């Protein structure tokens, strides 16, 4: 399993998207630093500089908005990295000599998944630290629980990655990644719909939201991340959208959803390993 995992990490680092991701992350960090520096030096209409509170409240919202976009990057990344690993590589003949070695298919899938989870985790941490450092140096703002938020985003990406990997046992890479990303998108949209349920006390919409979070727990992970990034003073503010948006939560999903997500990832990866073991090469 370790050999498979190390080879997968080498594969990710050698493919062209690794340097591209690093270059883009560096570029985004520079732009972030410039943007927040400009914000910290903005003047109001009457010519006075923005107050400390104004800068920090705007920065807090923009950090959450940035995290929202980052969650998309991670979800897409997880899907795109995992989708070609099984079916496509098998059909191209790349896996034939490997699977003919004295290794079990379960350890093969486990090694691949472990490597991807690690790679996505390292990338999430590095990119988030760079962004938050840029924010801290330019505005002095630090969100309340940045590491917990990054952990939640990592889980979000792992959910999409696990789904992509499970689908890639039978489906071509493009179909697997598309379906995994669509599941993420649908979960996100249902999350917004369910926020209407919370705002207007509609039990049906709330129930739909809960079911959606159980089926694909990416929206639940996003809500945990938002809660960890949100200063207490901004809870439910949502950048002016009130409770009807994805950028703020008044209370996070129950902690049980975290355990549910761990179990969900384990079950989906077990399913992937099981179906791959039965698949003819």
């Amino acid at each position: 399993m370790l050999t498979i995992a190390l080879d997968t990490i080498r594969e990710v680092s050698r493919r062209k998207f690794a340097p591209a991701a690093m270059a883009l992350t560096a570029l985004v960090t520079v732009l972030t630093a410039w943007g927040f520096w400009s914000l910290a030096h903005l003047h109001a209409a009457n010519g006075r500089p923005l107050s400390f509170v104004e800068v920090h409240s705007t920065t807090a919202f923009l950090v959450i908005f940035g995290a929202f976009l980052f969650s998309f990057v991670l979800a897409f990344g997880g899907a795109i990295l995992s989708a070609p690993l099984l079916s496509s590589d098998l059909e191209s003949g790349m896996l034939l000599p490997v699977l003919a070695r004295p290794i079990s298919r379960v350890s093969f899938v486990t090694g691949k998944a472990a490597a991807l989870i690690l790679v996505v985790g390292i990338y999430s941490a590095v990119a988030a630290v760079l962004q938050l450092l840029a924010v801290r140096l330019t505005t002095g703002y630090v969100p309340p629980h940045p590491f917990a938020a990054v952990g939640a985003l990592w889980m979000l990406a792992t959910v999409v990655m696990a789904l992509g990997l499970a689908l890639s046992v039978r489906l071509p890479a493009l179909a697997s990644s598309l379906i995994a990303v669509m599941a993420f998108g649908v979960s996100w949209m249902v999350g917004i719909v369910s926020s209407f349920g919370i705002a207007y006390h509609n039990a049906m919409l709330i129930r739909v939201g809960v079911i959606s979070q159980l089926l694909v727990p990416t929206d639940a992970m996003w809500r945990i991340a938002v809660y960890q990034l949100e200063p207490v003073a901004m809870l439910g503010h949502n950048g002016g959208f009130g409770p009807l948006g994805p950028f703020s939560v008044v209370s996070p999903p129950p902690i049980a959803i975290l355990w549910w997500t761990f179990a969900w990832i384990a079950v989906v990866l077990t399913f992937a390993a099981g179906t791959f073991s039965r698949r003819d090469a």
Partner: protein
Amino acid sequence: MSKAAIDSRRLTKAYRSNDPPAVVDLTLTIEPGCVFGFLGPNGAGKTTVLKMLLGLTRPSSGDALLFGRSIRLPRARERVGYLPELFRYPPWLTPREVLDYHAALAAVPRDTRAAEIERVLSLVGLTSRAGDRTGTFSKGMQQRLGLAVALLGHPRLVFLDEPTSALDPVGRVDVRDIVRSLRERSTTVFINSHLLTEVEQLCDRVAFFRKGRIVADGPIDGIVGSSRGVRIKLDAHANGVATEALRPFGEALIHGDTIALSDIAAARVPDAVAALVANGMRIREVTPLSRTLEQRFLELMDD
């Protein structure tokens, strides 16, 4: 008692319930050290057999053992090499990295790994390109690398699926030499190939496979069968006198200075030659008419 290298028992594979099975009740025993040729037309099911034996495809029923271990267990593939027919290696890796990866998967001891990698690279003639990315390799070079991967760690059983299909004549000779050296080390070799002349030169035993079943199996001589004909070459054009002289020995086909007697017992060949000499003809050459593996293949596939 040593265990058979391959011992399959009623191995069957049906991909879909409505389609005819790709492999039907394959029962086959191959002893250690045998170089075995597995022959058949396209679509006969040869690659399916090979993939089942390597655990890549699940049998619908039946089982097989590699050196006494069920093919359903990963351990059955210990010290087993495989060169697939259609494959590619990760284009971002160099041959040395590919081999290092496979050496780890094949549990080649860490302290001998580097030397073993250099050995197989040299064996297939890839030492000078060992540091280049495989993405730049031609199909023939990929096949050489595939062969190196298959030979890594001194396997006791090697499966070669069309091992020379992408190679030039020099490469084919190299492969023949490698297979001969494997035989000398008592390695069992299972070759799937369409190149019958190659199989004829290399294999101790062949099986003809057709529509998922073995239709003939045995040593090459036994499969091809003994010949009953001779070709007699004269030092001048043959004529009607020759036809008459040879009439007691069966039908003679004359073409220029060559006479073919297609149905004559070996014991009567000296008499036939004597009859020609007695009629004033001078003999330059007498050779048995042998049937090739290719002819036998075509006969079996026509049945």
